[in-house]
């Protein structure tokens, strides 16, 4: 997907004016956060925190042992009858999928939601090769029908209203207009059934791969995960290399903290553990299962101080609590991932020069870290990325100069005092008409008056007994 992240400031200025979208996002994220808190801490604060730390430790260990676990996973997946392929980047991953389709003469793919597939642009690559791709997650299907992009890691159309979906169905399919959600879902279900039954290839992502058993794990709510991975003869999974966990116990903790953190469910409606293609004595299941382990910049991150971000389980909890995300929606971030995780991953995966504003798209409130089920220190990473942006000279001259001037004025009390006097005098002249880049303040708020006497002066007078 084309990266527009350097336009964040302009995109966000437009986004915050879209009251309908903001209202939809606030509603969806608010519900999810409420449910997350209720389910994660259902057995008390200490228990919930304990679960988080248990999951965080499982991911930390998996990342520490990643090279070894990847080999173990490959070995066990293969022993289970899965064909394991490796892709260093998007092009290689997409080429693998095209080759698989060609090899088996496949013409139509049904897809389970996969953020990685968004990242690598899989749909477009397949369509260029003449393979039809149909998204089957309801939200992703709607995204596909409207030529849009998902705006949240687990709720692709959190930015849309029911009314806009109704209008889409009416316009595209001539659906009899209704505002009843159940009716609209039933309509979509019927349409999707036809797609499920006419496809010859199933494509999914992967939430976890358990290394010790070679098991591919998926969490879904709609049943499309089951249909896509068992109906067609060929199932292809594209999975980021960071999705490996060591043991079943690790997976058991994480699949529960993922679902609680994402939707507030103790488990999703469908929890799949795929241990290979159909066995000789089995009646259904795909005859071929491929797992493509995709790097696409992850091993580069692994070698840096930001390695811990690879623990992310893509639950969306950080997006749900982020006041910035809730004000702008996900599209303003300009790429696949928005919100706090997007502000960190986008510069790391696409290059800091392609996403320089994103580390600054945060007030550093810390809500994301508190919500993250694997305890990623996103605020610290944002601060470190800001340092990186400055070191790359990408923050803008006005800030480079401005901060130097400010630092000069704060290095000594004398200069600080002079600065204060200048500010007080200056305010008498310019009032609320602040110079750039400070003018952004008065766009939305009044600027306070500088006090006639600073605290320093008041203290000095107090000591002299003259206050």
């Amino acid at each position: 997907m084309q990266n527009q992240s350097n336009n964040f400031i302009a995109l966000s200025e437009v986004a915050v004016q879209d009251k309908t979208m903001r209202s939809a996002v606030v509603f969806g994220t608010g519900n999810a956060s409420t449910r997350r808190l209720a389910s994660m801490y259902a057995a008390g604060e200490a228990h919930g925190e304990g679960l988080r730390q248990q999951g965080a430790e499982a991911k930390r260990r998996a990342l520490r042992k990643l090279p070894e676990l990847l080999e173990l996973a490959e070995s066990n997946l293969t022993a289970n009858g899965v064909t394991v392929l490796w892709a260093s980047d998007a092009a290689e991953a997409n080429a693998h999928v095209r080759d698989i389709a060609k090899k088996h003469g496949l013409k139509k793919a049904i897809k389970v939601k996969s953020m990685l597939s968004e990242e690598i642009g899989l749909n477009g690559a397949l369509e260029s090769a003449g393979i039809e791709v149909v998204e089957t997650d309801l939200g992703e299907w709607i995204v596909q029908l409207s030529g849009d992009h998902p705006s949240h890691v687990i709720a692709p159309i959190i930015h849309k209203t029911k009314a806009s979906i109704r209008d889409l169905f009416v316009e595209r399919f001539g659906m009899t207009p209704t505002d009843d959600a159940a009716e609209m879902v039933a309509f979509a279900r019927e349409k999707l059934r036809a797609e499920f039954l006419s496809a010859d290839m199933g494509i999914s992502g992967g939430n976890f791969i358990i290394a010790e058993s070679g098991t591919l794990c998926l969490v879904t709510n709609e049943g499309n995960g089951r249909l896509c991975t068992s109906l067609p003869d060929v199932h292809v999974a594209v999975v980021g290399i960071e999705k490996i966990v060591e043991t079943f116990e690790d997976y058991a903790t994480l699949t529960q903290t993922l679902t609680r953190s994402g939707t507030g469910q103790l488990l999703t409606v469908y929890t799949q553990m795929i241990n290979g293609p159909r066995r000789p004595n089995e009646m259904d299941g795909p005859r071929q299962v491929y797992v493509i382990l995709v790097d696409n910049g992850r091993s580069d991150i692994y070698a840096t101080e930001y390695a811990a971000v690879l623990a992310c389980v893509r639950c969306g909890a950080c997006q749900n609590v982020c006041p910035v995300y809730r004000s702008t929606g996900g599209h303003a971030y300009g790429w696949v991932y928005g919100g706090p995780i997007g502000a960190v991953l986008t510069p790391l995966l696409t290059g800091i020069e392609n996403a320089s504003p994103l580390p600054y798209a945060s007030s550093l409130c810390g809500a994301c870290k508190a919500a993250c089920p694997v305890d990623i220190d996103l605020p610290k990473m944002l601060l470190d990325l800001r340092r990186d942006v400055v070191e790359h000279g990408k923050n803008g001259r006005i800030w480079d100069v401005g901060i130097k001037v400010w630092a000069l004025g704060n290095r000594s009390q004398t200069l600080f005092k002079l600065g204060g006097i200048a500010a007080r005098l200056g305010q008498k002249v310019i009032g609320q008409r602040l110079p750039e880049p400070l003018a952004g303040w008065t766009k939305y708020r009044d600027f306070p008056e500088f006090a006639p006497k600073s605290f320093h002066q008041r203290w000095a007078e107090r000591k002299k007994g003259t206050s």
Partner: protein
Amino acid sequence: MSLPIRESPISKPVSLFVTCIVDIIYPDTGMSVVEVLEHLGIEVDFPMAQTCCGQPAFNSGYRDEAKSVAKQFLKAFEGAQIIVTPSGSCAALIRHDYPTLFADEPDWEVKAKRAAAITWEFSEYLVDGLGVTDLGARLSEKRTIALHDACHGLRLLKLKSQARALLSKVENAELTDLTECDMCCGFGGLFAIKMADVSGAMLERKVGFIEASSAQDIITGDASCLMQMNGGLTRQKSTKRVRHLADILAEGLKK
């Protein structure tokens, strides 16, 4: 990441770090802090060489500039036994980031670690440090108040119960709720001007909840948040205001 454990500040004199915003915009708040501390019999001094903790530079990614200003702080507070500051965000920077900021300069790292080990935010100093919640404060008439939990203090220093404990003991102060009291007001330092439209949107939501609250005054522990919220409230011609915790406590101590 755990913070350095602090010794008890009981019986020790306090060096006040008033913060740059309080110094030049809200000096009354600094005075309120002094009044509260002196009411408790604490000896307060004010190192005149202080300017700022360096947070604007640190948060913007300018580590060298942050260090140069932080050094000024460390020099100013060289002889301090206890540092108290009416700002959760400044206290968090000193406690959380000063030690690692100077990791490559051993002489300064020692000073930074010492500062981190003796710095207290105002409300935690009173409640956790001194064990005081009841100041004997009394407002002249009944007032309904609510708290806004300033982010850095809340999440980095775990400040939440302290201010509530102090206010619950103020006679005539009735505590009520503020919806999304722990959601960011949108200040975020230079974020407020760099990402002005997002900051404005966050402020809009916050102001809406302040207006909807039955509280007449909103109390918070950070003057920066105060600046953001009051800037929005006056722009919307609201009669409600956000006040610093120190100010309402000092008001309650006036005879």
